């Protein structure tokens, strides 16, 4: 047994105690768990390792270095903030699932070998699905099933890749893998599914908006950032990731503009932000990898903040559709303010967290001479301000007054939002502590005159574009609708193909059956004709007739005999 306890296990084992506690003790213990885990993480020195022997395999259950630490820190912070946000919830299932899920993600970033990673990888899937099912509605149940299938599928592909990789190299160490050979390629695909690569992405936009108000906040923090961590560990400097990442930054934002469900808009922008991190991994320099880690850190906070504010709106009004909301700043001023802080952070306004992290990745892309990718990232930066920075607060809290008047969000929600907003601003104003925990020494100054002015130009002109399009009536209105995305393939197309195939087979069977039946009927008709009740061969003949027949036969016999 290892003598170093993984902080993830504190949360996982602790979550199993939660059902035995009641009321305030249960929720108090839930808050305590991330604190204990964080405490344990602080005691871990870089370079520390814990291993166990199992079935002749040596598993590195804990490996501590700068990359795993930065993700572990932010996962603990996210778990604590989410727990505060969920304080009012009286649902043991959600509390257990949330804490076990956070613990699994933390365990995974400390995994030193691929088998340990796999175990935690699957555990994040199995625990998190209950945050969706806890909505206890048919829609959420079905969405959760799809989510679970895809997440577990990612795990199965990961396991297949590990087996092949182990067979070829004899190693299960989770280090830089690169894309040579089948094993690492399968592992790459498994990571890609969880990281919501283009066309593998749609589980995210499908499932997250269907989860509970508080569940979505948990979900937004862990799964995808665990995948970012795994890619940064296994595939830094893989050029393909630059292109994958650039695509991820750009294409979800088109959907975000026309999506009506505001939590789904946030899911699309989550996808777009992951793209920046993936580009950073693909470039693979110290600056870009630092940028990825820093951006994951600040992203978890502002994305959680945005989901919290939209969750509060859903909690109070019962809807999160842009077409039905508006004017809520009058009744939820605090939530509005916190949402705007999140919006400013994701848009990377100077003095907010996104600015000091995203600029590292964009600078790395420009410094590496990737002019096209740089242009795409700039476009995506303007676009994210447009749909997350403006659209979200605008349609929920301003726009036309929907007449909805509700109470402000509960105190625990406001507290969680306030703390998160504070962190978003603190990191933006004073990034040095974050820079100090990044994987590589930081030689980057975010606040230069050029950075600040060009970024403000980009953002203010994007705001101007929004204002002009709004005033001229060109901006597409929020409509009650769904938009087709790649989930259409498995929710409509494939079922239809299966249905058609089944239908085709059925009609083929019908033809065969009818041919056989008609043939059989004809034979039967012939038989019936001759042998039926009125058939020639089944007729009852009178005795005289029979005698006549015999006479005729005998006559015939005589004739043929004598002739």
């Amino acid at each position, binding site marked *: 047994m290892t003598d170093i306890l993984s902080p993830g296990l504190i949360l996982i084992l602790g979550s199993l105690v939660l059902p035995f506690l009641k009321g305030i003790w249960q929720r108090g213990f839930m808050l305590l768990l991330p604190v204990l885990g964080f405490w344990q993480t602080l005691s871990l020195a870089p370079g520390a390792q814990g291993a166990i022997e199992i079935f002749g395999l040596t598993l590195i259950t804990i490996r501590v270095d700068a990359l795993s630490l930065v993700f572990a820190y932010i996962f603990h912070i996210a778990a604590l903030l989410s727990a505060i946000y969920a304080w009012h919830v009286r649902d043991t299932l959600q509390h257990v699932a949330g804490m076990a899920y956070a613990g699994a993600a933390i365990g995974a970033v400390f995994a030193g070998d691929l088998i340990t990673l796999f175990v935690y990888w699957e555990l994040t899937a199995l625990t998190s699905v209950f945050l969706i099912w806890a909505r206890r509605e048919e*829609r959420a149940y079905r969405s959760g099933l799809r989510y679970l299938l895809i997440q577990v599928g990612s795990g199965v592909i990961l396991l297949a890749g590990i087996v092949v990789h182990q067979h070829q190299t004899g190693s299960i160490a989770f280090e830089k893998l690169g894309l040579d050979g089948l094993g690492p390629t399968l592992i790459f695909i498994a990571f890609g599914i969880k990281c919501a690569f283009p066309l593998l992405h749609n589980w995210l936009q499908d499932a997250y908006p269907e989860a509970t108000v508080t569940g979505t906040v948990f979900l937004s923090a862990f799964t995808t950032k665990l995948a970012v961590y795994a890619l940064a560990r296994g595939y830094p400097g893989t050029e393909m990731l630059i292109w994958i990442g650039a695509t991820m930054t750009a294409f979800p*934002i*088109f*959907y975000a*503009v*026309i999506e009506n469900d505001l939590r789904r808009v946030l899911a699309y922008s989550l996808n777009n932000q992951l793209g920046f991190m993936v580009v950073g991994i693909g470039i693979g320099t110290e600056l870009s990898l630092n940028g990825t880690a820093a951006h994951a850190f600040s992203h978890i906070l502002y994305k959680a903040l945005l989901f919290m504010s939209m969750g509060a709106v859903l909690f109070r009004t019962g809807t999160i559709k842009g077409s039905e909301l508006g004017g809520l*700043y*009058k*009744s939820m001023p605090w939530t509005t303010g916190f949402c705007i802080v999140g919006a400013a952070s994701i848009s990377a306004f100077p003095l907010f967290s996104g600015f000091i992290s995203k600029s590292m990745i964009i600078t790395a892309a*420009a*410094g590496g*001479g990737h*002019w096209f990718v*740089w242009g795409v990232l*700039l*476009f995506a930066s*303007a*676009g994210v301000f*447009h749909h997350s920075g403006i659209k979200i607060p605008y349609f929920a809290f*301003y726009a036309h*007054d929907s*007449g*909805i*008047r509700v109470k402000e969000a509960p105190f625990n929600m406001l507290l969680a939002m306030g703390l998160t907003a504070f962190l978003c601003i603190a990191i933006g104003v004073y990034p040095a502590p974050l820079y100090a925990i990044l994987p590589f020494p930081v030689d980057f100054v975010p606040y*230069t*005159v*050029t950075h600040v*002015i*060009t*970024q*403000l*130009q*980009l*953002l*203010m*002109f*994007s*705001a*101007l*574009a*929004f*204002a*002009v*399009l709004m*005033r001229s009536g*060109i*901006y*597409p209105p929020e*409509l*009650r*609708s*769904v*938009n*087709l*995305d790649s989930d259409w393939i498995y*929710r*409509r197309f494939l079922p239809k193909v299966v249905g058609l195939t089944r239908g085709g087979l059925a009609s083929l069977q019908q033809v065969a059956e009818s041919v056989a039946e008609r043939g059989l009927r004809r034979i039967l008709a012939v038989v019936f004709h001759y042998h039926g009740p009125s058939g020639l061969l089944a007729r009852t003949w009178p005795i005289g007739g029979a005698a006549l027949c015999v006479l005729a036969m005998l006559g015939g016999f005589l004739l043929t005999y004598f002739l």
Partner: protein
Amino acid sequence: MMDDPKKYWLDEPRNVSKIYWTVCALCAALFVADAFYHKHAHFEVEGWFGFYGIYGFVACVGLVLVAKLLRIILIRPEDYYDD
């Protein structure tokens, strides 16, 4: 729902216009700002006067127009998947 007789500053269309013109003025000021500092550029286009502002504006208008076109193809009724 409660009655809310209170008038808010933003309820006045005149004030919304004020915000609009403030954004315009800020943009103009930021555009002109390019004349007053040395831009540290990686690519040549970055150095062009007002590049970031124009790029941001064109990008967003393009984004919205393309998304609007896409919507024609992608939009389905809200209960499309419910059956």
